[in-house]
């Protein structure tokens, strides 16, 4: 009886939390000014990409091209006060709707209120991919099957969400050594990753897995392990208006969406978000972000980066692996095709 009561209390607590986040999204969503609204072009069944960004002009061409190639139908982007031409560039794209805001990134829960608002308005019934401009989704069979094949298969398997952990990619040698040119594949430079140093814990309340590790944990957070950045992400969701992202794309409510793993020993399908953060563009970016103080946990991460960069951080080690393709990630046990043969 007590257990039942506890469950009921948890249920109501989570429900209240979800409704609070939805209300926030609706309220903060009003701060978004539409720059280009092409959402009328969205066809039923289109896969949508949702992005918040600031000053990412150099990265944008490759980013948009990458997701167009795997089959994203429409981009919905929030520009948080760029002044490097990102906004003008985005406004010209034919398959993209753009909103802009100068409101506080931190005050909108690091952009999640805005994204939740857009997801609620435009995502209902679509497979929605929520990523940052430096995150590139890799899933099983990506070289031969478009994203639509994956979402069709997920839907027919009764799955509503798809896990893709963040895989930090880095160059060999100092991060700033090789300059990144517009339109270039960032993984020509940052082609290395850590194969098997990820710690996993389960969050009992939200039921998501909490994954930490990789180069950032080992090089920058070794003395402060608890605060190492979270790498678990659930970026691909068949959206409904009642859903909401709780904290970045790490977890959602209702919490059943977070159960993207098998607990009986089997493997569910999963992918990875290759994280092209550690490029030459990173030095200026992290200095700027530190100035703005708009990041998670008092920008603790960026403090660590600045310190690391000053010591000419090189993430590369003997155990680093050179990225080849999705099969390599699967062999290493970072992603899985599950039973998607």
């Amino acid at each position, binding site marked *: 009886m007590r257990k039942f009561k506890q469950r009921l209390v948890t249920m109501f607590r989570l429900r209240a939390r979800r409704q609070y986040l939805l209300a926030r999204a609706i309220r903060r969503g009003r701060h978004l000014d539409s720059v280009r609204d092409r959402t009328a072009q969205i066809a039923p069944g289109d896969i949508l990409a949702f992005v918040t960004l600031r000053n990412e002009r150099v990265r944008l061409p490759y980013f948009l091209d990458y997701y167009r190639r795997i089959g994203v139908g429409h981009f919905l982007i929030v520009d948080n006060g760029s002044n490097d031409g990102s906004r003008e560039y985005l406004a010209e794209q034919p398959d993209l709707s753009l909103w802009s805001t100068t409101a506080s990134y931190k005050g909108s829960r690091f952009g999640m209120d805005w994204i939740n608002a857009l997801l609620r308005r435009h995502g209902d019934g679509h497979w929605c991919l929520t990523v940052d401009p430096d995150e590139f989704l890799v899933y099983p*069979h990506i070289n*031969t*099957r*478009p994203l*639509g*094949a994956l979402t*069709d*298969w997920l839907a*027919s398997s*009764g799955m509503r969400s798809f*896990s*893709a*952990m963040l895989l930090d990619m880095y160059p060999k040698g100092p991060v700033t050594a090789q300059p990144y040119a517009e339109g270039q594949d960032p993984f020509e430079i940052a082609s290395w990753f*850590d*194969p*098997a*140093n*990820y*710690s*996993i*814990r*389960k969050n009992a309340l939200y039921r998501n*897995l909490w*994954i*930490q*590790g990789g*180069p950032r*944990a*080992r090089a920058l*957070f*070794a*003395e*402060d*392990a*608890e605060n*190492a950045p979270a790498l*678990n992400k659930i970026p691909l969701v068949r959206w409904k208006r009642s859903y909401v992202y709780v904290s970045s794309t790490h977890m959602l409510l209702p919490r059943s969406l977070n159960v*993207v*793993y*098998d*607990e*009986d*020993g*089997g*493997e*569910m399908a*999963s992918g990875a978000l290759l994280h092209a953060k550690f490029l030459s563009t990173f030095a200026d970016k992290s200095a700027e972000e530190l100035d703005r103080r708009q990041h998670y946990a008092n920008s603790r991460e960026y403090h660590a980066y600045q310190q690391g960069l000053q010591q000419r951080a090189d993430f590369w*080690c*003997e*155990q*680093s692996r050179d990225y080849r393709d999705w099969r390599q990630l699967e062999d290493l*046990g*970072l*992603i*899985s*095709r*599950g*039973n*998607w*043969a």
Partner: protein
Amino acid sequence: MNAAPIPFIRGGKEGAGVRLGVIMLCHENLGLAARMARIWSDGGARVIMHVDAKAPEAAVEALKDALEGTGTIYAPRRSCTWGTFSLVAATLDAAAQLLQAHPDVTHVFLASGACLPLRPVDELRRFLANYPEADFIESVSVRDVGWTVGGLNEERFTLHFPFSFRRHRKLFDRYVRLQRRLGVARPIPQGVTPHIGSQWWCLTRGTLEAVLNDPRRAEFDRYFRHVWIPDESYFQTLVRRHSVHVESRSLTLAKFDAQGKPYVFYDDHLALLGTSRIFVARKIWPGASALYDAFPRRTEPADADEEPDTERIEALLDRAAARRRLGRPGLYMQSRFPRKDAENGKTAQPYAVLYGVGDLFLGLREAAAQATGRTIHGHVFGRQEVEFADGGLIGPGALSAHVGLRNLDPQGFLASLIRSSDPMPAFLYSPRDRQYLNWFMATDPNAQLLVVTGAWILPLIHSGMPFDDVRRIAAKLQRAEVRFLDTLDSVWVKARVRRWTLAEALAQPDEVWSEICMTLLPEGGAASLPAPPLQDITGVLRLVRALRNAGLRPRKMGDPRVLRALAAPLPVPEAADSPAEAGAPPREIALPRQRTG
């Protein structure tokens, strides 16, 4: 029924004498269905289509337009629901109509709008001509199947199923359980032996007519109306009453995964499907344009008479199913995070845990690595640092030597370490280390535990610490060791455990050493190199006694007489219990102050 030898005639050169009729069941993606229907009719088959009553009118009109001039006929539309008799009823109607409209049809093939013919229709005709009289229908007695999803075999035929499996799953399951408890059993009609099998078949005209015109058909239809998934059992059962020759296999490749959902094929399966010589495959992803463009494809003339070969495809699908159900042993990742004791393999490969042995031998790691060529890590669960084999800050898999990161998820750490290591890695372990994983290792069949109990005392002899500290630490270590040994005594232990007390190990160090070498390198035979030297045990008796006198009885050291005999050469007078002895100046450690004063 099939006592007669299988008639096989390699005579039907052009498939003469075979006229194929095709029943197509369609409910969605009618554009694709039209394309498939055209492949059939262009190959000379008579096609009848059943379109689900729920399909939108406009799409049906477009379908009819697209098939203008192919002679396709349309069965009266019914609304079909998965798992119910409606699908069988639609098939029966269509079959009757097809046979009546085309008296020349000799074989009838049941297909869906998502079935892609991989080989041309005339090759299928020729194949059928080689087996006159044969009905290609998978038909397995329910007593012997054992492969259905959900565990319903015979019960499909004897229980009632008023609730929808898809929409009211809970209710469905509960009602089945209730009927099991009450012992409900619907009578099976006389003369019927329940068989099930793939929904897709190819029957001869004679057999199909016999099924349709069976004098007891009304009775059977009434009965099957309440059978669970009758489209997998109606024809499969009744064909046994009428067929002269049942070839119990389907010409359509349609495999189901663990959730009972058909596998889908994509462009990258082209080569696999192309060499399989399978006639028809489903399902094909609607976007797999390379497959739709490539098939149907003519087989090499030399192979044209060969049987379909599904083995390679089935192996691929079985591998996928196994990955979903069992996963890779010892892997913990974002989409595989097994509950405790549901791991299907806690670790990825065998490994050795050298407990206490490192305190017994001098330079054990180097000696063992040299003798066996294995990677011998130090104390990877050390409290201060993780000691990897090469002493570096980064170990296998880019694991960090920082304890903070390891302590976030010690089990994941060990699993990653073992999965990323060369075969048979080993590491040192002792009660001084973090004891997180005692249960995990003890219940892991991959673990080879080589345990020397009481060895923790040896480093204390030479520590030079004040006795009070030694006493405190000894108590802690002994407590940890006793807990570890309790775990090893549990009935759930799956690890291979070899245990020695300190006294036994000191008496026969060569046995311990050869056991280590055998464990690390089973194929290497007996130890080729001599055992490394033992730790200096001078003073062990004195310390044991001092601890005992300080109220801490050292346990798990082994037979005290053996220990005493081994330590005998040591220059301690045997009159150790005399009060004078207790006051003697210590050689290695600071003994407690005299309490007798």
